[in-house]
């Protein structure tokens, strides 16, 4: 095993899954370093859950390989899974059993779990998600939020090195969402890697440091959150009475300005602006990597005699980046 492989909690190489004619997961190379809270983003139907199912040995990949905690899946499934807690595609329980009895059942299924500590571990897991008061209640009578918490409690039955949480805040009220966020942070503080799949960007932005974005079965981006945001484009907004001169300058920088006259007097010119962490464009010319420094644009505008009355550059949010990568509208994933 390589040093890099050991540092990864999750790793897939060329992972693909075909259902009939449809390629649900298409050659995904995912690398999740240990000890992080990693967000797995993508619209509904983009292949997130199928990827997770293959990671956990529930479905066999059509091609490619999966390594979890440095071990081959599904070959070393029996060694890997006791160290992994999972919430897959929503919670599922026996409605005719109580919350505690459900957890006892799943814990009994793990042949490495000690029966002697089962009662204590179930009680602790229920306590941790705030369900102790409903432990004896039949799951049939649970609300969606309570089931979701019970599902998380099931993932916490033993000390885990990796937690795979698929849509953990689904169906939770704002307080519940907050509690789950705190729970995820405390798990990460204990040294566990937390892999959170979600289509809620705000949620990922709040708890994750790294993320990967899926779209139509492909992995379209992954890395630190800050980097994901910055690698997008920013929006430039320029207010000037000299629309013609200013447009000429912007075109010289390789931008495509859009001129409008909202209140008649001054023109408002907007353009998307490819920016990078370095802003390494030199005055007058776009940088070799296509990125442009905003101050260089202002300097060029002033030099050409365009009166700059307003100039802003707004960096894109993760949402902009997400939409840019995965497309707009409801029918993005076929």
């Amino acid at each position, binding site marked *: 095993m390589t040093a890099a492989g050991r540092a990864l909690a999750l790793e897939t190489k060329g992972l693909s899954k075909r259902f009939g004619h449809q390629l649900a997961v298409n050659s995904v190379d995912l690398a999740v370093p240990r000890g992080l809270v990693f967000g797995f983003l993508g619209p509904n139907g983009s292949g997130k859950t199928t990827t997770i199912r293959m990671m*956990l040995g529930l479905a066999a990949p059509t091609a490619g390989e999966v390594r979890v905690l440095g071990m081959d899946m599904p070959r070393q499934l029996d060694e890997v899974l006791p160290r992994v807690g999972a919430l897959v595609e929503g919670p599922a329980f026996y409605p005719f059993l109580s919350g505690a009895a459900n957890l006892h059942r799943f814990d009994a*299924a793990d042949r490495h779990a000690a029966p*002697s500590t089962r009662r204590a571990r179930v009680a602790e897991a229920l306590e941790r998600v705030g369900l102790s008061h409903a432990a004896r209640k039949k799951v049939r009578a649970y609300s969606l939020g309570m089931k979701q918490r019970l599902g998380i409690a099931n993932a916490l039955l033993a*000390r885990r090195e990796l937690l795979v949480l698929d849509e953990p805040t689904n169906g939770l009220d704002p307080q519940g969402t907050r509690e789950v966020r705190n729970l995820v942070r405390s798990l990460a503080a204990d040294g566990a890697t937390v892999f959170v799949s979600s289509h809620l960007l705000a949620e990922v932005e709040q708890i994750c440091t790294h993320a990967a974005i899926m779209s139509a079965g492909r992995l379209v981006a992954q890395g630190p959150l800050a980097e994901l945001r910055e690698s997008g484009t920013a929006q430039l907004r320029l207010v000037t009475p000299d629309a013609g001169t200013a447009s000429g300058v912007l075109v010289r920088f390789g931008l495509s300005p859009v001129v409008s006259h909202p209140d008649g007097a001054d023109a408002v010119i907007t353009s998307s602006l490819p920016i990078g962490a370095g802003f390494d464009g030199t005055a007058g010319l776009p940088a070799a990597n296509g990125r442009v420094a905003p101050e260089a644009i202002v300097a060029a505008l002033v030099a050409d005699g365009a009166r700059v009355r307003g100039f802003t550059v707004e960096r894109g949010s993760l949402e902009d980046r997400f939409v840019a990568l995965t497309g707009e509208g409801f029918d993005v994933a076929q």
Partner: protein
Amino acid sequence: MSHSDRTAAQEPEAQEPSAQEPNGHGQAVHRLTVRDSPTPGTRRRPSSGSLLASELKQLFRRRRTQAMLLALAAIPVVIAVVVRVSSAVPPGRGPAFLDRISQNGLFVAVTAMLVSVPLFLPLTIGVVAGDTIAGEAGLGTLRYLLVAPAGRVRLLLVKYAGAAVFCISAPLAVALAGAGIGWVLFPVGPVALLSGDLVEPDEALVRMLLIAAYQAVSLLGLSAIGLFLSTLTDVPVGAMAATIVLSVVSQVLDQLPQLEWLHPWLFTHNWFGFADLLRQPIGWDSFGDNALLQAGYIAVFGALAYGRFVSKDVLS
């Protein structure tokens, strides 16, 4: 993987149980210290009994299972009550032995066991065996059992074991309820066997338990078929219905003289062959033949279930 890596991975697990162990639980603590070997990298000895215990508890605490056993037990009760309140049973009509009940209560059990063979017993077995895997898949709990990880082969074996225990319980419910109600409503005395010998009631009770055992064995093959069908679908009702339909189809085929060559291979062929257990001395041949036939069905459908379930994508 390297040894040092494995050690690092195991440490948190080994520490945890002792940290959470409640005080004053002397036996459990002792077991933990024995089990957790100090050698790094050694796993806690797997406990394979937990899942079977959990499965049996779940099966027999479930209302549906209890209702089915109660319904089976109600068959002899209904027969006994009907015979008791009616003035006389015309000899030679109705199920076999029906006319003997009023002279000897133990015949309630024999009659009820005979009546329940073609439909009632396969019906309940079909429900239990068809539910094994498909039921878990339908609830979505299958993925959590497998992620636990239960192990696919282990889960399949535990599920079959649960169904097998039900196969034993179902005929037993009929036999015991029949003996009980017969004892209450009718006189009980020595029983005349098919060979003409008279045996005492306690010996007769043993014979009835033997019939129940024969029926349990009869149902094992059907359970294996149900288990296999259950791995094919996420809809438990479908697997249940298919299992029950197969048991009926097999009995119908067994009635068609044109298919005589097929009859010895049908899993229902020996279902009524327990008459030899009511002779003196007991004839074990039919018991053996039946056991062999059922073992064949268990082997074939067990292998099919294994082949299907081990490679199945669990998408429910």
